[in-house]
């Protein structure tokens, strides 16, 4: 029997030409080959060279993770693929906008917790707040969980942006 390999989570940074269809190519690769996408962000990072950076958080067996890296590298518009999880320490951050609706003690409690998490209020009515929170995925998860009983109404998350620590660029 094939030994059951453990599932690991990896963060990839992919530098691509910012051209039509490039995101579809990456997503199609994942869906076509049955890989998971836990989170995906993309934006142009070099206007002159027309380069975009895609950050993908994915999970799979070590063999699948190696395949994902090779398959990404094989796409024609891809310049670089880095497995940040493997290649040394990295910082990863996510932003969430969290809408909480409520009144009385619950409303006060949500503000108190937001303060502890260093979340900012970016919109307020008499019956609601919109908090902006930045941090690692786990921190955002914890914050959102705490907001659940306090009137959590809506969440919008950006997905992870990540970068390697130290002086070396991608």
């Amino acid at each position: 029997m094939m030994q059951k390999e453990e599932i690991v989570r990896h963060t990839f940074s992919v530098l691509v030409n910012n051209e039509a269809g490039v995101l579809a190519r990456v997503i199609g690769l994942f869906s076509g080959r049955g890989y998971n996408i836990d989170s995906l962000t993309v934006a142009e990072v070099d206007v002159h060279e027309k380069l975009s950076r895609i950050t993908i958080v994915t999970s799979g067996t070590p063999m699948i993770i190696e395949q994902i890296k090779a398959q990404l590298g094989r796409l024609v518009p891809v310049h670089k693929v880095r497995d940040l999880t493997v290649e040394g320490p990295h910082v990863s951050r996510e932003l969430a906008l969290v809408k909480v609706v409520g009144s009385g003690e619950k409303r006060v409690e949500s503000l108190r917790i937001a303060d502890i998490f260093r979340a900012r209020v970016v919109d307020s009515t008499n019956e609601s707040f919109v908090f902006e929170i930045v941090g690692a995925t786990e921190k955002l998860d914890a914050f959102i969980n705490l907001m659940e009983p306090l009137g959590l109404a809506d969440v919008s998350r950006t997905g992870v942006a990540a970068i390697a620590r130290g002086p070396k660029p991608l």
Partner: protein
Amino acid sequence: MAQETLTGAEMVLKALTDQGVEVIFGYPGGAVLPIYDEIFKQNKIRHILVRHEQAAVHAAEGYARSTGKVGVVLVTSGPGATNAVTGLLDAMMDSIPVVCLTGQVPTHLIGNDAFQEADTTGITRPCTKHNYLVKDGNALARTIHEAFYVAQTGRPGPVVIDLPKDILMGKGSYEGPSKVQHKSYRPQIKGDLNRIEEAVEMLSKARKPLLYCGGGVINSGPAASQLLTQFAKMTNFPVTLTLMGLGAFPGSDPQFLGMVGMHGTYEANWAMHDCDVMVCIGARFDDRVTGRLNAFAPNSKKIHIDIDPSSVNKNVQVDCAIIGDVGHVLEDMIKVWKSRQANVDAAALDAWWKQIGEWRARDCLRYQQGDQIIKPQYALQRLNELTKGRETYFSTEVGQHQMWAAQFLTFDKPNRWLTSGGLGTMGYGLPAAMGVQVAHPDALVIDVAGEASIMMNIQEMSTLMQYRLPVKVFILNNRYMGMVRQWQELLHGGRYSESYSESLPDFVKLAEAFGAVGLRADKVSEVDDVIKEMIEVNRPVIVDCAVDQTENCFPMIPSGAAHNEMLLGPADQVAKPISEDGMVLV
């Protein structure tokens, strides 16, 4: 610097000419009329008008596979493009360089469900190496040059360029091919020398080595095949080839063990199972080759040479991976082997060859030819014999006849064998043979076919007639979709659901209806005469060779089984029922 201003259609023809294109396989339609107008006005590039767009791509594949050049296809928008999709995926799976130009509705109509509109780049994205939608006339020429670079660099593959009609009619400035450099795509060609030294070290210690080589050797060019032969001769290592690799090492050489895999030879598969060091050269551990993965070559160290990093460790974990072009890596490997004066363990190798000799003595391809009904193996053996010494190219369709052809035809040179390996496309053989004949007008080109497969692109007989391409179609007619019938016999209790070929045409009359020559062989005694006549006639020929209806293709590794569990013949099949896990596999 003044740049030439041309219409899009003019630029297409100029770019193709600058790329050295000699022939286009295509079919016109509304969206590509401007290009056809330019084709009309020139005579540098020849256009072959096919009868179905799928055939255009297969013909381009045949052209590419037999010449090493890029095959070029031109089809219209919508149905023209969708019909080409099967061919594109076929080229993708078998790593064949093809550039396919598709027409598109004008840019302002894209997304409007216009007449003959299809999202061609969307549809073809997963079945091409890369694709483009040209939205700016000034980018057109560069895109075409880039497409040729991408199609033939690294692991080759098909590239689609979608051309909206307004871009073809409008003007733009032309760029020559020399100015074009790709921004991101630069595959590694030279192998890492440290890895190569490591491989040589492993091989010099091997007691039971095996070279397992595939289509990558052929894609790397004829020089790679010569280097492979040189390396095998230096070391006296046994060689086996995949379906796609046939011809990469001389088939008549005693060091050749035959094809490996599901219908490979007994000696090749047992050698694969028992070897202690395996070098996989330009092959990809496909499921047809490995059989059950956890029982695959269990006691071997594996070295893998491949230009595509994603082929490495995909199905099978290897011990030493060398990323690079097969030809370059083999050249370095031979140098390192010589400079280190590496030796093989001669005594161990002798014992290994002795073992292989015992496997070979099982004579796994043996069959019983009676004096009346033609065995398909016999027909192919005679075909092989009677075409010896000629410049012969063989293509096939898909099924039993394809496997028998792989087993019984001998290929001493690369680029002479064309078959749909990865995708397994019925209807591939006739148009592929057509493409070969266009590239090699004086060669003998034979499509070994089944009566079911040939019906899938039979319309191309008309193209053969139009361009006087004397392709020979050799049908092994068993009045069944033979491979489907074989699986139904072995796996589904002999319930032959929909696998019979009912209401077949009279192939002799069909050939005559197209204006070609039709021949028939019903008895063993007629086989030689029919083959000789087929070869002599300098026109397209269909041979209808009636063969044993119930013959099965052996040896066979049933799905889900290991190499050492292969079935040698009908007597084996009762003893070893196929597992449920295996039934799920195709």
